């Protein structure tokens, strides 16, 4: 019953199907990257720099002579993993802190909420920039920084849910039965706080991808020769002025499409999980 209903809603919002298809496509590209590439994505081919798209190099080559098609494909592994991993970590931290904050109340709640306030006082991109500049740029660091900048949204969502859920009758029943607080919170209450998290997760994955790519673009993310879309766009930025458009355009289009996919999917999920927005 519930499944048919979901399918019906997906049909009502056909764009969310397009979003799902795009995300799945990028996931497949990431998994199948070794089969899809035509050249070594990190190996410059000498005497072959800045060539326009051709039969041999479908998306052309960059300033170092690396095949852009293969790099765009390979970068899906890095960008999609950064997006998924950072959202997963953000959800983990956010759910833990939010649940704790909402369940404990009092001083703990105040302390956590004021910490979130202070953190969210920063424009997220600038906070990310400042942290990366401090901890140093590596892929794991980028993942953690993007997660760190995004977790307050989840913490607030879960806290709000927790405040109402903890007053429910089944919560009282669980308490009366003698469950320790941690089992109550994580076994019985948290699972009922997760609804809005899924929607936010999908919308946030696109933002996370954009944030990570923007960090790489200004030179504070992934380093050469690792293929990453934001970095690849920045590689071509100077050559674009001389008309060599392909170096920046293809990886930029990949970011655009992937983010579009996450956003469309998120809109569709919002329709399903949040009837108020319909």
């Amino acid at each position: 019953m519930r499944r048919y209903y979901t399918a019906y809603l997906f049909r009502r919002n056909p764009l969310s199907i397009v979003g799902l298809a795009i995300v799945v496509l990028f996931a497949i590209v990431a998994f199948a990257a070794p089969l899809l590439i035509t050249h070594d994505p990190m190996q410059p081919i000498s005497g072959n720099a800045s060539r326009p798209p051709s039969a041999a190099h479908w998306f052309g080559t960059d300033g170092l002579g690396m095949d852009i098609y293969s790099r765009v494909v390979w970068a899906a592994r890095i960008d999609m993993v950064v997006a998924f991993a950072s959202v997963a970590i953000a959800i983990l931290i956010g759910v833990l802190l939010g649940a704790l904050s909402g369940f404990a109340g009092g001083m703990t709640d105040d302390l956590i909420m004021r910490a979130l306030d202070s953190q969210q006082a920063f424009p997220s991109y600038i906070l990310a920039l400042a942290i990366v500049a401090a901890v140093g740029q590596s892929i794991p660091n980028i993942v953690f920084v993007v997660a760190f900048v995004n977790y307050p949204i989840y913490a607030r969502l879960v806290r709000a849910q927790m405040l109402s859920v903890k007053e429910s009758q089944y919560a009282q029943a669980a308490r009366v039965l003698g469950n320790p607080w941690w089992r109550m919170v994580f076994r019985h209450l948290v699972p009922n706080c997760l609804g809005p998290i899924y929607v936010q997760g999908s919308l946030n994955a696109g933002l996370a991808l954009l944030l990570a790519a923007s960090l790489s673009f200004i030179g504070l993310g992934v380093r050469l020769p690792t293929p990453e879309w934001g970095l690849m766009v920045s590689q071509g930025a100077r050559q674009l002025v001389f008309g060599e458009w392909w170096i920046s355009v293809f990886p930029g289009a990949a970011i655009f499409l992937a983010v579009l996919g996450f956003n469309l999917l998120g809109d569709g999920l919002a329709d399903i999980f949040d009837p108020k927005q319909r």
Partner: protein
Amino acid sequence: MRVLRYVSKRLLFLGPVLFGVVTVVFIVARMLPGDPVHLLAPRDADAQTLAVIRTELGLDKPILAQFARYLTDIGRGEFGRAIHTGNPVLVDIANRFPATLELTILGLSLCILVSIPLGVLAAVRRNGPLDHVSRLTSLLGVSMPSFWLALLLIYTFFFHLDLAPPPLGRGPIGFDPPRVTGMYTIDTLLAGDLAGFATVVHYLLLPVISLALINMAPLTRLTRASMIEVLGSDYVRYALAAGVPRRVVQFRLALKNALLAPITMIGILVGNLLGGAVIIETIFAWPGLGLWAVTAATQSDYAPVQAFALFAATTKVLVYLLTDLAYFAIDPRIRY
């Protein structure tokens, strides 16, 4: 009286948030895997220099003493020195802020001037061609990486159409209008230099359009949604039923209420404007605060990054406060 009490209450809350902001910056700066001295010292400094810097900065003291010292430094306006320019941080900020201010004010103004009418018209002619176009572009706009959009604009309008200058800052090399405000549009006009003014506008064109475009999608979307909601409300239907002309209802009665939500959104956009400016300034070699912070960040020159983050957060907090106050002034239904 009520207003005064509200304002003072909000100002009182400002203190703890700003304290939190400073604490976050302090913690981030101490999160370094290595020694903060290495970030503040030149890369090739020897052990003796490092030790001198360490005592100078009080880094040999316990962490709370360091924090207290950090607070007093900030209170005294001491933010350290930017290694890559050699100037005290505050001097650099004063020099470079006008460039950023000019860019962001114009970018945001353009954004508002286009988004709000577009959102309103799309709502008034719902499901018309303009509505479809605005919805499609908003959808694509939120997914578009800002740096990619700016590059596509440069490629089209500089390389192909030759309508815009190269992305090389605020003017041709050596162009330097007599400084009064530091904002070139105003300074050239004050000097009566119309040719100079034209040059300034020419160089502002693409950065301003880029900044406006990246902020347009959310504002258009929200304006449209807000206007649609108001147009469907009972008082609008009543006014129509009572025979008030449609135009008057739409643009006099409905519009006023429909603009409340977009005001909040504009506040949010202004609060985050410096984040967008970082990217646009990097692409257009715009000598503002964003480019300054990025250059510092990529060269492990941490004092400017700290100061910039503090500056951005303080701006955002103050702008949010002003937005709330504006709301209070505009909407008589709000009682605190």
